[in-house]
């Protein structure tokens, strides 16, 4: 956290005000993020609890009134990588060499999933989209959670994930294509034909 080297000397009351007023309101988003990362409710609970304890411990490196949600999400993401990912031994499948290539490739306008239509989405009651999201590799899942579920801006995502904005964009692009592939598989299995719009 290069921009947070400055330490703030908060009084006990200020600490509690920040914690209750700026940190705790994000508990549901944090829990959802934790759950989407770990795919387990108990792990999510532990992860969120852990994150909030760390947030309190390092509260003096948080500048009151700034982006608490992004700050908390970054701690949670780091805790997940350091504590949980190791445990599950899940290797990252994101090919970091490849992330920038879509900007240069000739076929960027090729429609990857021409068979996926807006109509076929209408009958997805929630499980399908949720399962499709959960099936993505965690790095791809994460950018979709941050962008589409939580509405973070590219710049905030870059800070949360410690990656350049260009990588945020390209990873998001690939993540969405993978998600569409999954969704079109579901759509196909639900019996949708290639009907005209």
């Amino acid at each position, binding site marked *: 956290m290069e921009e947070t080297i400055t330490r703030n000397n908060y009084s006990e009351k200020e600490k509690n005000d920040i914690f209750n007023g700026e940190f705790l309101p994000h*508990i549901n988003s944090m829990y959802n993020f934790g759950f989407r990362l770990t795919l387990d409710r108990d792990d999510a609970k532990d992860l*969120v609890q852990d994150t909030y304890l760390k947030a309190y411990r390092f509260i003096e490196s948080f500048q009151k009134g700034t982006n608490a949600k992004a700050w908390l999400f970054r701690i949670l993401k780091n805790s997940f990588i350091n504590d949980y990912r190791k445990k599950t031994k899940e290797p990252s499948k994101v090919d970091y060499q490849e992330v920038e290539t879509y900007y240069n490739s000739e076929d960027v306008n090729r429609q990857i999933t021409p068979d996926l*239509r807006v109509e076929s989405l209408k009958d*997805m009651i929630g499980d399908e989209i949720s399962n499709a999201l959960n099936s993505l590799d965690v790095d791809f899942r994460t950018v979709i959670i941050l962008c589409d579920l939580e509405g973070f801006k590219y710049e905030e995502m870059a800070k949360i994930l410690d990656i350049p904005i260009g990588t945020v964009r390209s990873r998001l*692009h690939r993540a969405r294509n993978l998600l569409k592939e999954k969704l079109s598989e579901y759509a196909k299995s639900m019996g949708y034909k290639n009907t005209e719009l």
Partner: protein
Amino acid sequence: MTPPNNPFIQADGKKPTCMEMLQVIIDGEATNEQQEYFKNHMDRCLPCFKSYDLDMAIKRLLKTKCCGSDAPTDLVEQIKMQISQNTPS
């Protein structure tokens, strides 16, 4: 009638692809100028026109269907308890 400048062109002068423009629009990162430009572009570009609806629909679906897991009710209490135990007052 082509607009004089594509506001999506970055400092390096590289022409953006449809996908790149669409992504900026979908994610609400576009400037007013870029939105205006893309609206015109979409009228002439069928792939963008189709992708726009689909991408927006997926984004909405994700937001409404994948955000529902509220934290367990006792979580906040547990966190507060842990903190008060760890901070001698």
